[in-house]
């Protein structure tokens, strides 16, 4: 569960990225956070992952109050999240399997658990047959599947994807979104930060629109509805 109360975020004097944001995302939801470039949507995502601490206000993510938490607690918050990036951020020198396995090592999983769970998530995202390949041998869509598998492998409460389809063609983008929807159907909260109107419109999901650092719309339904308000 994610709660933001009256959150302000500034990057220096006169540069306010968020101006009093209130947001609640319950467990099991699928939420799009949309808005134009510079609207503050990535700042919102960074507040959730604790890359940023709010300048003012309160941010609680999966029972961690990021406004007050110690730096040493940040890794434990991030373990409750699965983070997917636009540029995949896979480790090139490692194979697909190792990239996913690595996330389990970090939490101290046993070799037996790792073997079982990694195979399961690679199969879930449809990339098990390429487990021994290096990321550079895969297409963009396949790399993003690996990134999603890595985000999923520790069974996080929430997946947060920041422009996950930004580097993909429309067909691959749709595949990735379908995959995220499937993950959501299995019970994981999914938050997708994007500016791709067409993609958002293909799913009847909650859309939080942000512009100029303010939430200007928050409703169930597509991106165009936000534009019409």
């Amino acid at each position, binding site marked *: 569960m994610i709660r933001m109360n009256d959150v302000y975020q500034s990057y220096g004097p006169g540069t306010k990225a968020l101006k009093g944001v209130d947001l609640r995302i319950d467990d099991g939801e699928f939420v799009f956070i949309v808005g134009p470039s510079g609207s503050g949507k990535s700042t919102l995502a960074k507040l959730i992952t604790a890359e940023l601490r709010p300048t003012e206000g309160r941010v609680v993510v999966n029972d961690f109050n990021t406004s007050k938490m110690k730096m040493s607690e940040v890794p434990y918050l991030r373990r409750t999240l699965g983070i997917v990036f636009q540029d995949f951020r896979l480790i090139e020198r490692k194979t697909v399997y190792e990239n996913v396995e690595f996330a389990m090592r*970090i939490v101290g999983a046993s070799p037996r658990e790792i073997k079982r769970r990694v195979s399961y998530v690679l199969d879930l995202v449809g990339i098990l047959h390429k487990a021994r390949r290096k990321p550079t041998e895969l297409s963009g869509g396949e790399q993003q599947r690996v990134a999603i598998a890595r985000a999923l492998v520790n069974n996080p409460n929430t997946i947060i994807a920041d422009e996950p389809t930004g580097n993909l063609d429309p067909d691959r983008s749709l595949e990735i979104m379908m995959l995220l929807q499937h993950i959501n159907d299995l019970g994981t909260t999914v938050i997708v930060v994007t500016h791709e109107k067409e993609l958002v419109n293909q799913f009847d999901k909650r859309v939080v629109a942000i512009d100029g650092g303010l939430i200007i719309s928050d409703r169930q339904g597509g991106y165009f509805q936000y534009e019409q308000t």
Partner: protein
Amino acid sequence: MNRHNIVYFFREGIKSIFSHGFMSLASVTVMITCLLLTGTALLLVLSVNLTIESMVTLGDIRAYVDETYTREEAEALENKLRMIENVSGVDFIPNDRALEEMRDEFGTDSWLLDGLEYDNPLRHSYRIMVVNIDEYDQTIADIESVQGIADVHSSRESVNKLSVIRNILGTVSLSLMVLLGAVAVVIISNTIKLATFDRREEIAIMKMIGATDGFIRFPFIIESVILSQVAALIAFGLQWLAYNYIVSIGLSSIELIEMIDFSTVKYYFLGGFMSTAFVFGVLGSIISIRKFLKV
């Protein structure tokens, strides 16, 4: 730290050593040089110390009894001498034994002393050993103040000069240790910084997927510990070989300085080298990785 990750940490640390081969070699070389220079200075200090100690503990002080004293009166002084603080041993040398010793020293020319046994001009004396060299001057003064002691011979000047040399060497070796330690830390930290810089993306990913700073840091610490311990072992071997070689070719023939036997201090050197290198290695890696962890 989780036991499942120990193998991973070692594997990553060792991999990194080979992927930055040149810098690894540079840091090992610098570390060896630092340890060798410090070790050499330390060996010199120990040798000078040994020289001073053996001079005073092996009976460097000779106290001569008043020539009017009979042998029995001279022997009676032994208790007074033993009671002096800092005196560890007293050996009475009657004048007939002194003459015998002199004959031995003269060797083939000992015939020159023939006839002296009938009217021995030598005095009874004591060879005195002390405990603490730092109280050397005071001890000599105490001996001189004993009634019946006419004269005291010692290597006071030599001992004092050697003490000065020892103190200078001690300061030099300590300064070297600090200076070279700093150099070693900088070089090791640069090696690790290079490895860290090379993997900064990877570190950022690790941070974002929930790795603790300890998890990220550990392979780099392993890397620097391995490098520093390899350097310590090589430096120890080289120090041993070089020192023994130098002693064997000449320094041992200089009677002024008694060179320390390396085998008597080898475990101290091994432990000292390894622990010093360990501290510098770990310090270097912690310093270098710190800024990359701020994600």
